[in-house]
């Protein structure tokens, strides 16, 4: 039976590059997929594009493509990535130049666009899923609106012979489901296959998170050689049956436990995982260890798609200012608490308006609050004051007040840090898919 091997070369935009090279050179792959777009990334990229029209794609695009394209071309491995972010056309122009400079003239590259639906969203009467507010109320604070596209334009690009496909916003699992549909000719209403193909994509899209990354817990879950973590390979047959594996000799491990953790990662109702092309059902999935670093995952199913696409809306949502300072030794907690009280009073005295704030002691309560604490005297604590403001000037003053603890606060405060930034928040709306028109542009290097 025909089997396709797909490697996951990145789980987020800043991910390690060598594991992708290892996959390209030693993975016996047919496809190498790079998933690099977090929720907010595209809004940040849209801001960059407004400043410089030829930017707005992934900052590591050049480094990644330079690292893997020679091996991919030599071995006939096709590359699919959402590194186009807010500007897939510019990303393709860059990729073509890189290919030529590597002596890979003739490389067929496709740009997938159409995910930018800002105009359609602003024209309609849409409410944000999270807060129920009208999109129109965001007015000029709105930066971007991008629909999660499905597989169709990627499948079409592959059918037309593309060797490198660069997209903007696409549902992450679709980057993996598309080549399966292209290779096996699955029908777009074969819901169970599309559901199992979504399992494949979901398991692979975070790269090292299924090969032992985000997993180790010494004494309970030991993982060897995480500094050389291997990224995953999915072997998929025409039925959609998946075997997760990795390059022999690479670090990490593929086990039932790593696969189960990743299957449920960022899943709500396992019976209904909403995707552009299918509502996937993970509830009957089973995992089975076949051999060392070989785990079979089967049983994904599906139901008809909803006809609506999720759209991420990026918008400016005020400013955040922050300051930090550390205390250690006997009485560290008491001095840290005194410092917090001082900063709180200073921010009131100087009339810094904060809509929301946190006064934390890192090492004591910054991650999970105070309710679950049993240890009460840490050797060191790090004060952290952070607040939301309307203006950047006020945000800056929060960090400044923390810094003045150096000469005005308790004894022995060290290691001040301060920062202030504009907040790019993301919420979502649902858009009828008929309002979204993906398109493909081909370029030859």
């Amino acid at each position: 039976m025909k089997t396709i091997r797909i490697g996951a070369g990145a789980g987020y935009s800043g991910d390690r590059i060598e594991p992708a090279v290892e996959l390209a050179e030693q993975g016996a792959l047919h496809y190498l997929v790079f998933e690099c777009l977090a929720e907010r990334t595209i809004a940040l990229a849209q801001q960059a594009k407004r400043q410089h029209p030829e930017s707005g794609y992934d900052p590591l695009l050049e480094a990644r493509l330079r690292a893997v394209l020679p091996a991919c071309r030599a071995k006939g491995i096709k590359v699919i990535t959402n590194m186009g972010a807010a500007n897939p056309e510019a990303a393709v122009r860059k990729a073509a130049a890189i290919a030529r400079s590597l002596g890979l003239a003739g490389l067929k590259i496709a740009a997938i666009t159409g995910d930018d639906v800002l105009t359609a969203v602003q024209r309609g009467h849409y409410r944000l899923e999270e807060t129920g507010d009208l999109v129109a109320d965001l007015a000029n604070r709105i930066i971007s609106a991008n629909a999660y596209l499905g597989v169709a334009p990627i499948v079409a690009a592959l059918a037309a012979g593309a060797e490198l496909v660069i997209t903007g916003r696409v549902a992450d699992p679709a980057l993996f489901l598309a080549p399966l549909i292209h290779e096996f000719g699955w029908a777009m209403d074969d819901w169970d296959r599309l559901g199992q193909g979504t399992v494949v994509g979901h398991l692979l899209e975070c790269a090292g998170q299924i090969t032992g990354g985000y997993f180790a817990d010494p004494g309970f879950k030991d993982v060897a050689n995480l500094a050389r973590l291997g990224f995953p390979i999915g072997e998929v047959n025409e039925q959609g049956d998946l075997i997760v594996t990795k390059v022999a000799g690479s670090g990490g491990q593929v086990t039932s436990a790593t696969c189960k953790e990743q299957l449920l990662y960022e899943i709500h109702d396992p019976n209904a995982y909403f995707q552009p092309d299918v509502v996937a059902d993970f509830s009957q999935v089973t995992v089975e260890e076949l051999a060392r670093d070989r785990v079979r995952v089967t049983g994904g199913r599906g139901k008809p798609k909803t006809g609506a696409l999720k759209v991420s809306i990026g918008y400016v949502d005020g400013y955040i200012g922050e300051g930090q300072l550390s205390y250690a030794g006997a009485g560290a907690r008491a001095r840290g608490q005194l410092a917090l009280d001082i900063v709180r009073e200073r921010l009131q005295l100087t009339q810094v308006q904060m809509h929301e704030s946190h006064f934390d002691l890192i090492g004591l309560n910054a991650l999970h609050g105070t309710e679950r604490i049993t240890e009460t005297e840490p050797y060191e604590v790090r004060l952290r004051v952070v607040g939301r403001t309307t203006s950047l000037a006020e945000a800056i003053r929060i960090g400044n007040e923390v810094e003045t603890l150096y000469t005005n606060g308790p004894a022995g405060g060290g290691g001040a840090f301060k920062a202030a930034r504009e907040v790019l928040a993301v919420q979502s709306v649902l858009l009828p898919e008929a309002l979204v028109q993906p398109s493909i542009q081909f370029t030859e290097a």
Partner: protein
Amino acid sequence: MKLRMLAHSRAGDKGNTSNISVIAYDPKDYEHLCHYVTAARVKDHFQGLVQGDVIRYELPKLGALNFVLFDALGGGVTRSLALDAHGKSLSSAMLELEIPDPPARHETISV
């Protein structure tokens, strides 16, 4: 005992919602987890951290539970003031949950 002795866990984020899996190391402990790691217990355990409802989904074929915690991430990953805006460390808070020891299993002991 702490839940950590019987299960492992991973947290994920979507907007202001966190999901935290609880996966039995040994599938034989799954029923025990179903009995004691309820949505109500988890909601209580995360008091002060999670403002919204907690829903539990059961995955008997994986020996796993999936908890969805609403209004759990300080208004959402992209705007949260929290040190861990994604709530990635919430899996470790989950494993701090105290549960009774599982019933002794009848195993053959050779003398």
